[in-house]
């Protein structure tokens, strides 16, 4: 079954999603949602994945308020109405 999920895009990556703060996408798992998202916005892909298709280590993905590293990574199942957040490392402060 296909599920609608809201993906929150951080400011630093909105240049690759036509400035949109969130994107509605579909998929039964976190991995499928991210594939759909990067298929719809190809310039986003290198910012989330390495060339061999692994999630980059400095980008954290949260399903609702949980880090997917602790819930089964990309195979974590998603439900309708879930929100997925891309949370890249940010260093600014001065």
């Amino acid at each position: 079954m296909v599920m609608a999920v809201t993906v929150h895009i951080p400011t630093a990556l909105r240049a690759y999603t036509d400035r949109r703060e969130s994107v509605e996408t579909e998929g039964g798992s976190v991995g499928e949602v991210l594939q759909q998202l990067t298929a719809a916005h190809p310039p986003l892909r290198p910012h989330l994945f390495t060339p061999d298709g692994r999630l980059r280590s400095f980008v954290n993905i949260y399903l609702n308020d949980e880090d997917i590293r602790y819930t089964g990574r990309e195979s974590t199942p998603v439900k309708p109405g879930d929100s997925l957040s891309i949370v890249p490392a940010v260093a600014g402060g001065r």
Partner: protein
Amino acid sequence: MATLTEPTPAIELSKDEILRYSRHLIIPEVGVDGQKKLKAARVLCIGAGGLGAPVGLYLAAAGVGTLGMVDFDTVDFTNLQRQVIHGTSDVGRPKLESAQATLSEINPNVRLVPHPVRLSSENALEIFRDYDLVVDGTDNFPTRYLVNDACVLTGVPNVYASIFRFEGQASVLALSGGPCYRCWYPEPPPPGLVPSCAEGGVLGVLPGIMGTIQAMEAIKLILGIGTPLKNRVLLFDALQLRFRELKLRQNPDCPVCGAHPTIRELIDYQEFCGIRGEAAEPEPPAGDEVTPRELQAWRQRGRPVFVLDVREPHEVQIAAIPDTTLIPLGELPRRLNELQPDRETVVYCRSGQRSARAVRHLRQAGFTKVWNLKGGILAWADEVDPSLPRY
């Protein structure tokens, strides 16, 4: 929860201090004992900039007894839009001198300890050991990881915040068994991938909001009241005016705070973050750059060089080199078809960092005659057209 400091019998409040702090003293959760804890507390603020300004102002006003600050920079005109601890007449002055003048005016009872050094693996542990709490207001990944590791190794909690444009993150890290920054981000992004505030900009109010959250968390930790921002991260989106909270877990495999740590002393953080030598960006090989004067000379001799601007449209409104074409860096991959691979092309941005990435991308895409404008439009303003505004 346990408090960081205990008031010693030697700590007393003077009559003036009782008056000054009276709005604290009448809160049952603070009271005279709490105010004495604040007076006994030693807080180290890393950076006297966007985050450090509100942190310093509010902690000094609140009566934190010892306030250390680490910064080696001088006040610049571009700082004043957000670093409210400094004023226009402070431009050119060391930030610590300027900050001290402001803070001692706000509260002369605070002992201010300046550390006018670049925080490094050689000095961090020694500096941190004299403090109960660190507030991290730095602006780059090597120092973020250095502050994190030094906090874990010395057992000093880290009140963390970070900002970008309209977004902020905050958390209390390395607090008695809680997660550290490496639990959250085991590795930094490669240099140049995440823009800095100098490159990406920041709305001036944002560090005010995130810095005051840090100041509040610092005071709660000192007093031992409430629930600290531990095991969670606060995300703030100013454009949507939305706060969100994410869970943060201690990673048992964390190399610095995990069960079997592999990092037991401070490392080379420039190397860890992929940055070597003094330059923040790897220098492109010789022959990849032209200076503004060279470009100007080419143009004057009628050489048909194409000049590509990879900044954002709002930057073009501030200043632009004439007869140039705008394609923002983020749009470049999908707009390559608008360019001619065999045409001589010079790429520029604000300072030359984004354009260096654009040059690398264009070369990989088969462009053979591409150069980076060394120092960007800032250098162009210095060398060719001083009438252009700097930003």
